[in-house]
């Protein structure tokens, strides 16, 4: 009985997992210095939100969630593409991919 | 994985056997490749060890095991060792999703003093339902093995070979993915079983309510999607880095490409991955355009009935029929694998810019045109 209670996975389990992943994504964005890793943190946050969309749609019997996830994936890919294009340009100019480059933008 | 012990057992054994089938096919394919190229070039090829040189593979395998272990000095050890293992996984996962024979039915039978069954057993590793999309997804992971190998060996030729290979793979993945859209429009499903079932019988079209049939041709996808099949074949050649698209391994420019620093068993594992990809591509081609495991005009029920009329039991007849269809499927696959070898010695290698131009400016527009024409024809035929 106890084990079965533990193993019955409901919506809140998925939401909790999603919250953890989202927080790790936020921490990656806030703490890391490397710009590309920061971009990866954003991807992680988007994926956490996708997971909660899918979980909601699974537990409420609704097909809207996957469609929105599809859209989010598209936009995330577009964002990653433009973001990495910027990174390559920044790397060419400054030889580093670091948030410290923003201090050099003054002059 | 199954509801009781026997089903779980059958499914597990099936998974391992399908993987071993893939692994075992590789030495045979290497032999076919070496003998075949020798045949095309009018020489003997390996013919000393065993009959027709068949034992050469065994000798090679033993040699591979006793090769010296080597990691380049500047290389990254973990990544260097991980790359060949990663190379194995996509091919194996993709191949296990393809049905190799018809689903057969087992009546209840006695085993270990208990009665088990009835079962319906798929002749495939697992039935994912979204078939082709799953395979596209899994095989798109193949790029990592190349990238890891190229970066892990800390050799500029390896890195360049890997980058070239990845750029080529992803360019042709577009054409590959788009060439299948036409077939999906015709079949209206992702599921392999359903696709194969729709290719049974003789060729017949339904155009705005009227039935047109060509009784002497099988109802195979190739007759609906000839351009799609051709584009798929070409894109599959490029995906597997085979000649004439083997730019990543162009030995005159890049030594041996991404596996320059690899030797022994690790090198062999890259070969396993590459031949696994070839096998998956051939199996997909057979499934989509050449009727899958089916014999033309013959359904599995007919063969089962025939076997039963010879006095075989129901279970025995069903199992034998499944194995017959499995043989048919493998023969069809081997024909396409032979085409791989054949083309290798027929067409010269492309230049890199020609390769990219072919992928982006020729194959992609043609695949797009194929999709549009198919959609319009399907619309006009069904309205």
């Amino acid at each position, binding site marked *: 009985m106890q084990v079965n209670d533990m193993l019955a996975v409901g919506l809140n389990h998925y939401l909790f997992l999603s919250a953890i992943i989202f927080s790790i994504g936020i921490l990656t964005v806030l703490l890391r210095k490397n710009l590309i890793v920061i971009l990866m943190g954003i991807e992680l946050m988007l994926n956490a939100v996708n997971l909660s969309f899918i979980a909601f749609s699974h*537990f409420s019997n609704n*097909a809207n969630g996957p469609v929105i996830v599809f859209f989010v994936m598209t936009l995330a890919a577009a964002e990653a*593409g433009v973001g990495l294009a*910027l990174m390559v340009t920044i790397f060419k100019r400054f030889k580093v991919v670091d948030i410290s480059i923003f201090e050099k933008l003054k002059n | 994985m199954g509801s009781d012990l026997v089903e779980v057992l059958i499914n597990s054994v099936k998974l391992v056997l399908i993987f071993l089938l893939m692994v075992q096919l590789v030495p045979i394919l290497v032999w076919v490749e070496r003998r075949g190229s020798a045949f095309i070039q009018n020489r003997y090829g390996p013919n000393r060890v065993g009959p027709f040189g068949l034992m050469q593979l065994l000798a090679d395998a033993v040699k591979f095991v006793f090769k010296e272990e080597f990691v380049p000095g500047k290389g990254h050890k973990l990544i260097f060792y991980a790359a060949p293992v990663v190379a194995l996984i996509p091919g194996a996962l993709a191949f296990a999703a393809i049905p190799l024979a018809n689903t057969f039915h087992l009546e209840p039978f006695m085993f270990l003093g208990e009665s088990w069954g009835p079962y319906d057993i798929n002749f495939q590793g697992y039935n994912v339902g979204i078939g082709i999309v*799953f395979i596209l997804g899994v095989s798109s992971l193949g790029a990592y093995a190349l990238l890891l190998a190229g970066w892990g060996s800390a050799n500029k030729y390896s890195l360049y070979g890997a*980058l070239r290979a990845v750029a080529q793979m992803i360019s042709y993945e577009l054409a590959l993915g788009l060439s299948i859209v036409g077939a999906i429009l015709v079949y209206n499903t992702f599921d392999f079983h359903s696709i194969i079932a729709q290719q049974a019988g003789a060729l017949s079209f339904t155009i705005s309510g009227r039935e047109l049939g060509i009784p002497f041709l099988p109802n195979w996808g190739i007759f609906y999607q000839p351009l799609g099949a051709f584009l798929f074949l070409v894109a599959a050649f490029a995906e597997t880095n085979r000649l004439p698209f083997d730019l990543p391994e162009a030995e005159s420019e890049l030594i041996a490409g991404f596996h320059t620093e690899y030797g022994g068993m690790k090198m062999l594992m890259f070969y396993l991955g590459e031949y696994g990809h070839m096998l998956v591509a051939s199996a997909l081609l057979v499934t989509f355009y050449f009727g899958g495991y089916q014999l033309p005009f013959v359904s599995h029920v007919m063969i089962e009935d025939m076997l039963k009329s010879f006095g075989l039991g129901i279970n025995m007849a069903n199992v034998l029929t499944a194995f017959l269809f499995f043989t048919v499927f493998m023969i069809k696959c081997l024909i396409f694998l032979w085409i791989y070898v054949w083309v290798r010695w027929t067409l010269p290698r492309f230049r890199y810019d020609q390769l990219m131009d072919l992928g982006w400016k020729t194959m992609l527009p043609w695949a797009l045109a194929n999709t549009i024409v198919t959609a319009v024809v399907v619309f006009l035929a069904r309205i």
Partner: protein
Amino acid sequence: MITGYLFYMLAFLLILFSLGVLMHSSPLFSSLNLVGSMIVLSAMYYLLQVPFIAAVQLIVYAGAVMVLFVMVMMMFDLKHEIKIFSGGFISNAIKCGLAGFFAFTIGATAFMSTEMISGSAKVKTEVLSVKSMAQLLFKDYLIEFEVLGVILLLVAVGAVALSRIKGGTHAS
């Protein structure tokens, strides 16, 4: 039953890989960890009975976006960073605290509303068909779908324009 075991296994792996993205000192290994978490997420979508989205996750994220990330990492050949975190100890502690508070809030909300969710939700047993998804995509969300096409076109133009910018001594 088996779903529960699978969920906990995948959740453990997912958190492990995500922490790897956050903590690993080499950006290349961070990106490889992100690849791992994408693959685990795809398995989790499969568990949630949306196999098509799971496959798309593999194709788009693991097979395309992350290949680009890893490729760029390898091109730059970034070394292990000695100092991987920005800012000082106090500001980082505040950031960690805020993120932890955020996770706690959502988690607490999720657990307090257990009754409501499990009471009202009827768990779906059949697989979400691609057809019902396509109905929504091409009828209800038609405008958004076409706009996405235009956005993808704009991004393609933008990426080409950005890559044309001259600067530095890097080979172009």
